[in-house]
């Protein structure tokens, strides 16, 4: 992984919600722009290119952290908006609101996505996992625990996004190497600059999840 993440970003920036919305004109939106995280495979329009249908609002049913949610959403509403403003799950942060920072990373059907880049209308019937859904009966997920143990944050605002990226990585790849960890986390920005400890935390959680540590 000699090339920097900035190059990655440039390459994958083709799919922005802004550009997409401009392209289809105001109001009539239907296709998801579920941009994948930098460093992991993007779910681009190619995979999800249904013709947009015109609608004022649309009833959807999605499962968030195991709980069924029935909502009526507007065409412009993002998954991020639904999570924060409708369901008050504010652990998922709005940092850039245009797919550049990873602060709103959630798992959509197990894959990490930027919630600000996913239209809510396209989440009908799908499974969403947020940082609020990781702990089981009060017991923290190993990635969460490792973030505390290693002090893998300062202001903590980017932390839920990093944790979700870390969880997505470890659920798909229980023993990632250093370069794989870096790649999986390269779509998240930490302005306080705690990357070294974030890396250590994900590595420690990997070990713990494999039973190396209790």
């Amino acid at each position, binding site marked *: *992984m000699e090339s*920097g*993440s*900035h190059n990655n*970003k440039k390459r994958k*920036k083709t799919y922005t919600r802004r550009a997409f919305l401009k392209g289809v004109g105001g109001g009539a939106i239907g296709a998801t722009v579920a941009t994948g995280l930098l460093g992991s495979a993007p779910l681009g329009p190619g995979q999800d290119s249904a013709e947009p249908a015109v609608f004022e609002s649309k009833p959807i049913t999605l499962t968030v952290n195991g709980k069924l949610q029935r909502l009526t959403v507007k065409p*412009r509403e993002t998954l991020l908006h639904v999570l*924060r*403003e409708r369901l*008050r*799950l*504010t*652990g*998922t*942060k*709005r*940092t*850039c*609101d*245009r797919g*550049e*920072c990873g*602060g709103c990373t959630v798992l959509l059907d197990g894959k990490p996505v930027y919630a600000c880049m996913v239209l809510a209308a396209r989440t009908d019937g799908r499974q969403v996992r*947020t*940082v*609020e859904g*990781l*702990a089981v009966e009060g017991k*923290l997920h190993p990635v*969460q*625990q490792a*973030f*505390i*143990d290693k*002090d893998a*944050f*300062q*202001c*903590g*605002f*980017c*932390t*839920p996004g990093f*944790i979700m990226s870390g969880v997505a990585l470890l659920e798909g790849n229980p023993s990632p190497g250093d370069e794989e960890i*870096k790649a999986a*986390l*390269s779509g*998240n*920005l*930490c*302005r*306080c*600059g*705690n*990357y*070294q*400890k*974030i*890396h250590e935390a994900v590595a420690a959680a990997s070990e713990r999840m494999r039973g190396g540590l209790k």
Partner: protein
Amino acid sequence: MRYKELGQALPGAKPAPAGRPPAQNFKYIGAYLPRVDGELIVTGAAAYTHDLHLEHMLYGKILRSPHACAEVVALDLAPALALPGVKAGLRLKEGRLNYLGEPVAAVAAVDEATAEEALELIKVEYKELPFVVSEEAAQAEGAPQVLAEGPNVQKLNELTRGDVDKGFGEAELIFERTYRTSWEVHQTAETHASLAHWEGDSLTVWDSTQAVHSVRDGLARALKMPAAKVRVIKKYMGGGFGSKLGVNDHTVAAALLAGQARRPVKIVLTRKENSYCVGYRPSNRVTIKAGVKKDGTLTAVHFKNFTCGGLGRGDDCADPLVDLYRCLNLKVEEYSVFAHACPNRPTRAPGHTQGTFALEGFMEELAAELGMDPLELRLRNYTTKNQGDTGTPYSTKGLEQCYKLGAEKIGWQGRHKRPGQAAGRMKRGLGMASQIWPGAGVPGTLADLYVYPDGSVEVQCGTQDIGCGTRTFMAAIAAETLGLEPKDITVKIGDSDYPWAPVSGGSLTAPSVGPAVRDAALKAVEQLKQLAGKKLGIPADQVAVADRKFANAQNPSQSLTFAEAARELRRETVFHGERALWAPGFDYQTFGAQFAEVEVDTETGRIRVLRVVAAHDVGRVLNRLTAESQVLGGVLQGLSAALFEQKTMDRSLGRMVNANLHDYKVATIQDCPEIIPLFADVVDERLNILGNKGLGEPPRIPSSAVIANAVFNAIGVHIGEIPMTPDRVLEALKKKREVRS
């Protein structure tokens, strides 16, 4: 007040009480302590201002000037107010607008989308005026005058020490270099945000701020109301770095809109607004000319700085030079250059960072010119008194220890003795840079400690945790002193109704708040020991405090639990703590040295930072775990500024071309080198009851300079300007080849 003078003692501050033994043998203070509020952060439960929601809350939005300089000719809010869902609107500024992004009007509506739509309905007629958005353009002949009064270039700071002409006359070598730094935007993860709520004539504001008390005072002034009726709260905040130290336009707007609508109003700035409107580190162009003896003794230094912070005064940045090296003859001239951009704001170690980039770059280049080891050159001019060894002695100065620790860890002896001597395309090099910063804290800072009759303990302080672990060190100090565990302590901060503490900026928090908490806890334990002693039938000085117990020191089996002793108080009892004055006659500063190894691809110009060793003297470290994080962050931010960051302006349109997190490059995990934090652990007994200094700014101060210096060692040419983008590296290499041939 200058940012660096925030650390002055308050008028009522008192000397330290006599007879308290020096603190030692701590169990929690100085240990690796995970944060007491870590679980809130990792579960997403910590409530940031962005996350708050009140019943009937409205969403505010601000209409901002689309021009770098313009006159508002006409403005009509009526069409916006007529939009269903819009509940309030107001004009914010009439007449001349001096930067793109300057607030013009504001609206509040039932949701964000409606508020955005309303902004587009406001009718404004602007008359565009000529503008300048760079230091160079502002100084050009015929440039439009930026400020209503005074020219575009104004004197900021000047200082003379000794006789510079005489000093240059004694020099065996005269050396001159220029160093430039760029506009660096804070780009906090949480954009600025405020939520205002009126109850009668009292106002409560939840604000994403580093300073609840200063926002309260600023709001009271702006709204012309008593400070006593304003309360400002900040529980969790997503990064400040100096951009959230005072009251903001949007905070005042939220309060006014909320007053108009009689409903709570929340305003959350967009990333674009954060890129344009809430400050940045000003640019600096520093020329240093020094006279030197062949053995490295400085005989004279002339330091000239042009700083551009838009409508702000920029940063004076000679302080590191004034203090750090022995130099009797010194002349400093600093000028502000004004331009049509929002005013600069303090940015983690304002002035010192830019001044250190210049000064420490200069020392590295000068050492090469003299054929000396750059570390030896620094030691040759080492000081033990401020003002370049002409002033007050430092109480403690662990810089020499930092040099030793860092040099050993990085393998300094293995560097290229002559910069650029490595062969091949990929060139590696080692560099270093030093650091000085006040960080002594504010005598007069207050903290209250409550002991409840059930044995629970609460500490209150109107300070803020901006990510540095304030709650955790407060809990550790109280627990340590009372024989409890950190988790036994309830810490309440981030509220202007709590006792006064300074802004969380300037590395002030830990040395202000820590000693105040310790003081309160010592007072509490003294009274509890009296009560316990009475109950145990022994004198108070024979009571030992540990493991949640008050025990007979002679006979530990005879003891009371903490709760049993607390019950003797019969009601909740508050112990007032205060940070005392430092011992007079000394200067108190933090020091540090960083060492870096880089690899430069001489064909692409790309720089990769491989390792950074950061050794700092900040007195006693209160929590090693969080302190290490602060150092990592300071190093990483310096790397980011050194390689990527620049608020780039289109000079013909007056716009910022990278007002987002995609085009405004910040370092990612892919850019992160191995960073090794080290501490000199020089406890300063004269400074305060804990002997600790601040750590916020220190690791950021040398962290861009050290990378530029390592690049110099690698390729034999100092880039002299940050960010060191590949084109600048290639340009510098080309110039070097041209000079040779």
